């Protein structure tokens, strides 16, 4: 597994960070708004945001007083594409198995 995927998964493995991403799926938000639902110090939130940022899952505007955070979907594309392909491969195998089960039943029914 390459470093990019490792970082993506490591970043996603934390419930606080997933909640932050879920919030950002609705649109960009400033740090204080992202911190609001959590009973955490600003330092703790900042640490989570740094992990998300280094995984490329969020970006922060360098300009403006509020420096809003924004969701970046590119790292997740690789993951979702793999899951989709893995699912398709199994679906294909199961389709073939189901065809065999149908053949078995036809034989038994005479």
């Amino acid at each position, binding site marked *: *597994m*390459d470093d990019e*995927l*490792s970082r993506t*998964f490591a970043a*996603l*493995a*934390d*419930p606080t960070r*997933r909640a932050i*991403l*879920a919030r950002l*799926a609705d649109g960009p938000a400033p740090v204080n708004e992202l911190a609001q639902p959590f009973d955490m110090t600003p330092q703790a939130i900042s640490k989570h945001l740094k992990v998300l940022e280094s995984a490329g899952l969020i970006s922060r505007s360098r300009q403006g007083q509020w420096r809003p955070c924004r969701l970046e*979907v590119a790292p*997740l*594309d*690789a*993951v*979702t*594409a*793999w*899951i*989709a*392909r*893995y*699912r398709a*491969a*199994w*679906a*294909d*195998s*199961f389709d*073939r*198995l*189901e065809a*065999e*089960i*149908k053949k*078995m*039943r036809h034989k038994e029914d005479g």
Partner: protein
Amino acid sequence: MTEVIFEPGRQDIIIRREFDAPREKVFKAFTDPELIPRWWGARRFTTTVDRMDVRQGGQWRFVTRNNDDGSEYAFRGVYHDVAAPSGTVFTFEFEPGGPGYLQFVTETFEEADGRTVYTQVCLFQSVEDRDGWIPTDMDKGIRESLDLLADLIARS
């Protein structure tokens, strides 16, 4: 409908599929060595059964051959438990494998109204091992919809 559940931070992959047949039939089909070459593995591979002794303590080993380049891969394991027709528990290892490739697989067959829900839970030894199952040569840049992303997050 085939469902794959791959949640961040977990060390398992769950695969689920409904079959339009009673579970005795589905279980029999899954555990029939003669049927394996007709369905198991990806379509561009030819699978042969080297060993498949479906009973407690029995061994299994499949060899798959890539039809395009002739390369061969083998998978093997041991049946920890076989309880027809409700399920099996077995190990799954990629040869030559090595650390990170051993999975502990639990299969269950549940019947309702003459149909069978098949569920396979593949448990890896760590979250890192499971995530490492994602091949490094996968196509990049295939842009899936935001729905899939939302789904991934919603399931967590």
